[in-house]
Each structure stands twice: as C-alpha cells, then as structure tokens.
C-alpha cells in the first residue's frame, strides 16, 4: 500500500519522492535509529512553545518540527568527525549529529549544565566534540565557517566533510555566494544543504529570490546541484551520501536543495499574521515521521516496536526537561567573564 498524498499537495510539491525503498546501505538498525531521531527531534521541539509560554527559557526559539527528515537524513550519512554548521533553527541538526538532549534542553533553560553553560541559548548550541560547530543567529553567516572547516580538513589531512545547513533565506546573503565560490574553486569537502521551506519569517521565497529553484544556482559555481524531497529522510540521506563521497574523493562541493514547507510558525509564539496557519496544515500529509512509519510498517516492522521508539523519544525528552528544570543550576555570577578569552584571561 503506497503512502497517500493528496493531489493538491503533489501538485504543489513536484519534488515529492515516494519512500518506496530504503537506501541499500542503511541497515534496519540504521533505519530504526533514524526513526528514533525523527521522533526525538519532534518531541524536543514540540516542547518549546510550552516552555516559552511558561517562561522557562530566556529568549526565543525556533522549532524544527516538520524539518526532521533533513537533519536526520543528512547526519545519517556523516561520521562522528564530520562537521556540521547550523542555523537559528538548529536543534534538529544538533540532535541528529549526536547531541545530547539533556544538554540542549539545559542550554535552552539557560543552565550552566547546558552545552554552552547557559551563555548561548537556543540559537547557539554547539558541541565541537561531535563536530557541531555551532548554530548561528546571523542568517547566512555560518556559510564561510563551514568552508573554513572544510579547508582545515584538507590542510590537516583529515577525511572529514562539512555539511552547511542553511535556509532559503540564507541563500540571499552575500556570504552564501562568496563561500560557495571559494569552496567550488578550491574543491573543498563541503556540502551546502539548503533547507528551502519556502518562507523566511513572513516572506515567501518567491517574492525575494530571482531564482527560487536553489539547486539551479549550482551552475554559477560549476558544481553539482541536486533537488531533493526535504520531507523524505531517505532521499536526503542519498543526496548527502553521494555528495559526501564526492567531497571525500577531492571532487569538491555539492549544492543540495532539500525542499519542504515550513508548516509551523517561524518561532514558537509566531502569530503568523502574514499567512493563514490553518492552510498550512494540509502539508502535514508529508510529515516525515508518518511517512517513515508507514514505510517501516510496510516493510514488516511490527508497529509495536515503532511505538516503543516513539515512547522512548517522548520519555527521553521528558527526562531532558526534568533534568533541565530540576537537576540543573543557573550560572553563578563568577562565571560571567569566564570563556571570553582563552584561559579565562580577563581584559
């Protein structure tokens, strides 16, 4: 039985790619891991609104709900010592790359046990150990960073590739162009992964992009441009996998456009005055979790084991929230000048 998608959505989303077959190199274990990660990210970011409303976090946060296939598909194709750079909508990237949800949640709570000791918050979570070079609050700014990491890999003879996640909005930044140009010219092991979710806050991409089909811009850098279904973790996996192989073989960067729809608000308490949020809901038909679940069941995975995974994800997030809420501490004033300069030098 194929997964059902309405004609309306299929028409609006021509890059739809059915989830018929898992990529050959993904074991069932891998697939189950992916399913867990999809759920873990969803659970994690579904908590945000509640936390924000209850004043548990300090600033604001952006939910990755609906985008999970991209981070999970991409990071599944990476090794631990590969790098990623992330965005303001970064929890999914961090978790998919191996981040610890206790530490992400603690950071969102502004706790000293958080990844950034409470100094970064939702928009800046980093874990260099896991190759997570950090989220960035400045749209587009991490592009060059990613290229720098890829440059390091070459000079230091590491086999790492770097995946640079960014939104459609980020593709309008100058540094997007500068970065891809240099990476393309020097054939650096970096993958530019555009999460084209059609929106940048309240602005539709087609209103501000001369060429909204991002993958076509690859011609301008003489590199491959790939369009993929951003709601489909297998599709993203395949695209990133082949780009990573290319990169490791010294053939240079790839521009991957993972297309999807930002179904949720821009940030956790977005009133979406600029569009009708109700009209977005049909897009949940493409929910990567539902699609993957359908695929796994079709492929004889017992529903019960999937439910177990779902429950585990839920519990892990509850645990993370409980941890952040009750077992963690606010940073003390004496940490204020710590971490500014190397060796905590004070200037």
């Amino acid at each position, binding site marked *: 039985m194929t997964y059902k998608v309405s004609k309306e959505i299929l028409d609006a989303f021509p890059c739809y790619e059915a989830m018929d077959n898992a990529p050959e190199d993904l074991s069932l274990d891998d697939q189950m891991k992916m399913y867990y990660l999809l759920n873990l990210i969803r659970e994690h970011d579904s908590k945000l609104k509640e936390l924000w409303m209850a004043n548990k976090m300090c600033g604001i946060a952006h939910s990755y709900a609906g985008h999970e296939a991209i981070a999970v598909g991409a990071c599944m194709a990476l090794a631990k010592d590969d790098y990623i750079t992330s965005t303001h909508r970064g929890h999914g990237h961090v978790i998919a790359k191996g981040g610890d949800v206790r530490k992400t949640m603690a950071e969102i709570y*502004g*706790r000293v046990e958080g990844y950034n000791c409470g*100094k970064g*918050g939702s928009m800046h979570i980093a874990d260099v150990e896991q190759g997570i070079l950090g989220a960035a*609050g400045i749209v587009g700014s991490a592009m060059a960073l990613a290229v720098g990491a890829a440059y390091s890999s070459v000079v230091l003879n590491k086999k790492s590739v770097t995946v640079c996640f960014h939104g459609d909005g980020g593709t309008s930044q100058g540094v997007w162009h500068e970065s891809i140009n240099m990476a393309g010219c020097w054939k650096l092991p970096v993958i530019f992964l555009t999460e084209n979710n059609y929106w940048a806050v309240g*602005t539709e991409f087609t209103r*501000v992009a001369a060429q909204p089909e991002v993958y076509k811009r690859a011609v301008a850098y003489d590199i491959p441009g790939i369009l993929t279904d951003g709601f489909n973790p297998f599709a993203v996996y395949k695209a990133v996998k082949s780009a990573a192989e290319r990169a490791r073989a010294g053939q240079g960067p790839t521009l991957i456009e993972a297309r999807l729809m930002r179904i949720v608000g821009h940030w956790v308490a977005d009133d979406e005055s*600029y569009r009708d949020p109700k009209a977005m809901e049909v897009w949940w038909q493409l929910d990567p979790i539902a699609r993957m679940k359908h695929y796994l069941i079709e492929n004889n995975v017992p529903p019960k084991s999937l439910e177990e995974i779902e429950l585990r994800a839920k519990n892990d997030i509850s645990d993370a929230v409980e941890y952040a809420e009750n077992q963690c501490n606010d940073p003390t004033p004496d940490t204020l000048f710590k971490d*500014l300069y190397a060796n905590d030098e004070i200037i």
Partner: protein
Amino acid sequence: MKISVRQAINDAIKEEMNRDSNVTIFGCDVGLRGGAFAVTKGLLKEFGEWRVRDTPISEAGFTGIGIGAAATGLRPIVEILYCDWITLAMDQIVNTAAKKRYMFGGKINMPLTIRAPFGGGDGQAAQHSQSFEAWFNHVPGLKVIAPIFPEDVKGLLKSAIRDDNPVIFFEHKLSYTLEGEVPSEDYTIPIGKAKVIREGSDVTIVSYSMMVVKALEAAETLAKEGIECEVIDLRSLLPLDYETIIDSLEKTNRIVVVHEANLRGGMASDIVAEICDRAFDFLDAPPERVGGLNVPIPYCSCLEQLVIPSTEKIKKAVYKALNR
C-alpha cells in the same frame, strides 16, 4: 494624545510617506508582516510594494539599494531589524553613505534614514542584543539619534527622514510598548538638541535611550535621600548637545554618563573626554561612567542582568560622584 513608541514610529513614517511620495521603505518583513516589531504595520497596504519593500535577507545589498535610491531622488528608510546585523552593511554605510557627498565634492545628496532596533535585556544572547552607536559616532558624515520617549521618537524620526544626510536611528527593542504623550499636530524635533527631563542641583546624569528610564528611576529614589539629580536625555548622539550638558554641569559640578552599550570604547568615554576639554574647571569630582560590562551579552537572564547597567549601579555612580 498618549501613544506607544511603536505607534509613534508607525505614525511618523506614515505621515512622512503621505507628505513626500519619495519616502520609501526597505527591509526584511517590513511589508506583509508589518515588521518583526510591528512598527510598519499597515504601510504596505496603504502605499504599495514599490514604497514598502520586503527584501531578502541581504543587509548589505538592500542598504546599498537605499543609498543608490537616496542618491537618485528617493528618500529611503532602511530597516536593519536588529542592530547586530548592521555589521553586514558597514561598508555600505561607512564607505559609501557617509562619504559620498564629501568624496564627490558635494555633488550628491544622501537623504537616507537607517532604523536600527538595538539593546538587550530579553534573553536573545550575543548576536541579538548589541548597541553599536559608538561606532557610528566615529564616522564623519553620519548623524546618529537614539530617543526613547514617544514624543521624541516621533519628532526625531520625522526630522531624520526629512534630513538630507544619512541618519542612523536607534530604537530600543524593549521600548516599543513604552507610552507617552505626543502633540496631535504635525511637529518635528530638531536633531542635535538634548533635553533636561528632570531638574536637580547635585549631580548631572547624562544618558540616552532605555538608560534614561533607569536614570530617572535612580534619580527618584535618590531624591528620597535628599540627592537631587538633573537628568539629561541626549536624544541625539551626533551631533551631541554639549551646551546643555555643560550648562547643567556648571550648576552641579558632578556628572555621571550612562549607557547600555559596553563601557570600553562606548559613547560615555567620548562625552567624558569632551567634557574634560570643554569644562574641566566645572568638575568637582571625576566624571563617572556607567556602561554595560565588557562581555558579549550572555543568554541566561541571571547573567544578562549583570551585564546591563542597573538602577543600582547608576545610584552607586552618583554616590561616587558626590563622595569627593
């Protein structure tokens, strides 16, 4: 008429757009969404997309477009949603907007207003909380203003729009709901004039933007202890009204300068140095400065609140100014 800062900005822009069909807005989400802080609500509908332009996230590019448009007959207002990102447009602002008239021997006009919401205090961390006014003070060719009360915000924004020079207009991100009286008729407030908003004879407190509110708070509590502070709201930073400051200093002989931006390299240093130049003999005590601590703004409120000057710190500075 009592309105919020948000309304004051919206009214100022709307009135100027009605008055002068060359006034045009550029910025991320200024149109359909009406601005992230809802300050440009309704304008797209009223003036159409050629005058209220939703831009891509291209700060350098759309600031530069504003500059080119200003040089060729329009009177653009560019919004940099958070002043932190004005870093992306520094070349355009500093090397082109500020210098074009001069480099070209006066042959080009630059009626450009750049609105830049600034300041911290709401847990948005290091890349969404900064205050860069001191940088622009260092750039000849620009004007810089940072009013806080609705009346001043409206009157000065209108002056900025009408001004034929590039003006950087800083509005505090936490001020949008701050309310106050504004005249009901069309009015402007001249750029470059400070305002004594509280009279006092013991110490002069000079400040701008959100810190004016805290300075007033500090002054009120100090008054209960019998210390009368004169509070000056600078409103404009470049040009800066030293006359008003020195007149006050002549009376109080003690001065405290307060701002939210981190102290090192901040506006307060410039003001203190200039006071030393112009009125050293009026000083009965070292001039005091209160500014943000010299760290990036941390995310968690417990730390953030230590970085941004508090009423308490202002009070301490006043005591210090009085104790010698």
